[in-house]
């Protein structure tokens, strides 16, 4: 069997190397060694090939991180964070990607956690933060609705104050991982207000509360990670209200602002570039030597240059902090550039697969068992990533919404 997935001794210095002093280099060695053991080989290979990690793979990995206290590096130390510098966190997330680790789901650690320790009651902190830190509680995000996607403030799910509890009715959509989440944070309308953003509140709720129904949405990659969530007369206990009633929109903006560090996926992109180089030295298509194909090499060189620029942009923008000159435009610039690169990389991989790109699933892989694992290693997962990767320019604010934000920063005229 041809060895297509092992790391070769040849390792390119990446952008993180530009940042390292001796202390950070030692830090990286420690993180790298721990993560290597924390991710089972089989998981690493599956993720590297483009398959989404399973719930149990994520849970096992989070438990290993929790053992070192590494689940929520960015949190304040008093709430269980690591106290790492921005640079250490950057090294850490780069190492997560380098090891093809299952990753830390954003919903608990990056999204609701910071909202709770910033705006929540002591009781909410005591109840929810430990489960996020231990990795035992899986969360999902109830923001989008069938009529409220990019225009989130038009949401119609209603939480009526019944004195002692709220009565929740409505529907959420695109709810990632709702089918195995333990808890949900959501936005619902509690009051009629002159500004539509004004009457919105944020709640936290257990997913096993009566009246919640989760229905799967099968995506274009034919996998199930998205859901619709229906609420019919669901009783939210009064202590499920986050912060002040009517301030949900502010908390949502705070929450999305905290998401900024994770949006570029540069580590994964760097790994994809390395995969493309590995793909180029296999003989997947007989008679085709990609290492001598000038069109392929040129495409690879171009996306690699884009990625290098993105890596540097991420360092520059993060190191400026929240008051830097790029604070307004930075997140949107990073998201647009990153979406473009992630999609280009996936396209480039698929474009090299020739007729194999038409095959799909376990039977397809078995049918080519004798080819030394080549389709297994490169085809099926790459198609997953290609298909689901179309969502990168849709979720978290579509490319068009990001452009609206940027234009607002650059132009005096309002549309």
């Amino acid at each position, binding site marked *: 069997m041809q060895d297509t997935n092992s790391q*070769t001794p040849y390792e390119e210095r990446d952008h993180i190397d*530009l940042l390292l002093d001796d202390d950070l280099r030692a830090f990286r060695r420690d993180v790298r060694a721990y993560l290597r053991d924390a991710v089972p080989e089989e998981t690493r290979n599956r993720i590297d090939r483009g398959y989404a990690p399973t719930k149990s793979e994520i849970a096992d990995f989070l438990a290993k991180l929790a053992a070192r206290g590494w689940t929520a590096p960015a949190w304040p130390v008093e709430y269980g964070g690591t106290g790492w510098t921005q640079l250490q966190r950057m090294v850490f997330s780069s190492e997560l990607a380098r090891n093809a680790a299952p990753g830390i789901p954003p919903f608990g650690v990056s999204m609701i956690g910071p909202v709770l320790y910033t705006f929540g009651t002591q009781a909410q902190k005591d109840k929810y933060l430990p489960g996020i830190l231990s990795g035992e509680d899986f969360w999902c995000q109830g923001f989008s609705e069938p009529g409220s996607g990019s225009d989130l403030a038009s949401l119609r799910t209603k939480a009526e104050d019944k004195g002692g509890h709220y009565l929740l009715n409505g529907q959420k959509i695109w709810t990632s991982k709702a089918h195995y989440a333990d808890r949900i944070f959501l936005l619902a309308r509690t009051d009629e207000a002159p500004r539509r953003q004004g009457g919105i509140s944020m709640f936290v709720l257990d997913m096993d509360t009566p009246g919640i129904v989760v229905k799967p949405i099968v995506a274009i990659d034919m996998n199930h990670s998205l859901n619709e969530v229906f609420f019919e007369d669901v009783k939210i206990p009064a202590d499920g209200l986050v912060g002040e009633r009517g301030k949900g929109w502010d908390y949502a903006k705070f929450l999305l602002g905290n998401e900024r560090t994770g949006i570029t996926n540069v580590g994964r992109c760097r790994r994809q570039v390395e995969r493309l180089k590995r793909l180029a030295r296999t003989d997947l298509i007989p008679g085709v030597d990609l290492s001598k194909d000038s069109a392929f090499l040129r495409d690879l*060189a*171009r996306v690699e240059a884009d990625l290098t620029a993105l890596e540097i942009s991420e360092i520059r923008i993060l190191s400026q902090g929240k008051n830097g000159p790029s604070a307004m435009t930075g997140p949107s610039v990073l998201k647009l550039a990153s979406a473009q690169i992630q999609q280009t990389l996936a396209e480039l991989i698929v474009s090299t697969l020739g007729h194999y790109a038409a095959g799909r699933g376990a039977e397809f892989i078995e049918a080519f068992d004798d080819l030394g694992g080549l389709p297994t290693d490169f085809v099926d997962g790459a198609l997953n990533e290609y298909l689901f990767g179309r969502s990168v320019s849709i979720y978290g604010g579509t490319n068009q919404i990001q*452009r609206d934000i940027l234009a607002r920063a650059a132009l005096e005229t309002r549309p």
Partner: protein
Amino acid sequence: MTFLEHLTPSDETRMICEAAEKWTAGISDADVRASKGFSASRWGEMAEMGWHGLLVDPDHGGLGLDPAALSLLCQAIGRARLPEPFVSSSVVCVGTLSSLGQDVSALVDGSAIAAPAGFGLPCDGVSSGITATPAADGHHLSGTVDLCEAGPDTTEFLVVTAGGDALYRLPHMTPGLTVTPYGAIDGRPLARLAFDCHLPAEARLATGDAARAAIRRGNALAVSALAADATGTIEKAIGLTTAYIDERSQFGRPLAAFQALRHMVADLLVELEAARSMTELAAFAASDDGDPKQLHDRVRARICRAAQSVGHAAIQLHGGMGMTDEMAIGHYFRRLIFLQAMMGQEAGALRDRAATLAEEIELQREVAQ
């Protein structure tokens, strides 16, 4: 030095850049047009501000600053689209000559202007057609260099041979040297050089590895300076464009109210950020004596693409007015075209990087077997 330290300018760098901003702010578009490619008074003012010796050790009359400072200065030059041969003389020639321990005092004080021939501009390798043969008491140079940033005020040349294995320094009045002037697309003077010259032995500054290292140094500084110049030019082109579409009305509202145009502007900001990042990387990679080529190929590729797409969109957003020589935007567009040519174009940079990628893949193949 780590990259983050590089991103934080020193007090001295900050001061010279603030002075540069102030000075260039006083130079109008009409001033630049009127100078027709070179202003002796501006060159003198640059000398007074110490720019020509920016990279030169204080012991030799320079400011002793690093490529990070150079990068900021070149961005200011790009924004003002100054046509003077700052990159050619004060960056490439001064940098290369300093690395060889040569006297650069006349270049630093602004009384002399040097032009690199066969490297630096363009910065993507060696572009010389010159051969050197031993002759009585010296060397005989013959052949041509097709593009050299030389004008009426150029006082000397730094000439590399075709293989990049020897470097010569000669005055502009050298017998047997024919300088055929022509204009660059952005208005600065260029020339084609034809050599049939006898040079004294001491005209040869370096050979072999020493010559190659000096040329590499000149090219590395040139990539950094040109990338910065392009980034400043891009920034200004975007500023002119947003101001124009905020101002100009059609169908009863400003052009900037139309979403199709707003989204084009958004993409310009993405390009600008990429150009800024690549400029920082280029300066950082040029900060030590190592070979930054692998990173610089990517820098050239990405900057050239940003330059091209911003140039095209800026003209498009100016509409018919963008087609006129009267508007400044066309001048910035042409400067971007010049800079792309000096960086070997996106296509050339990608070709260079593709070649090293092929080597890396081959190396991995051998390791895997």
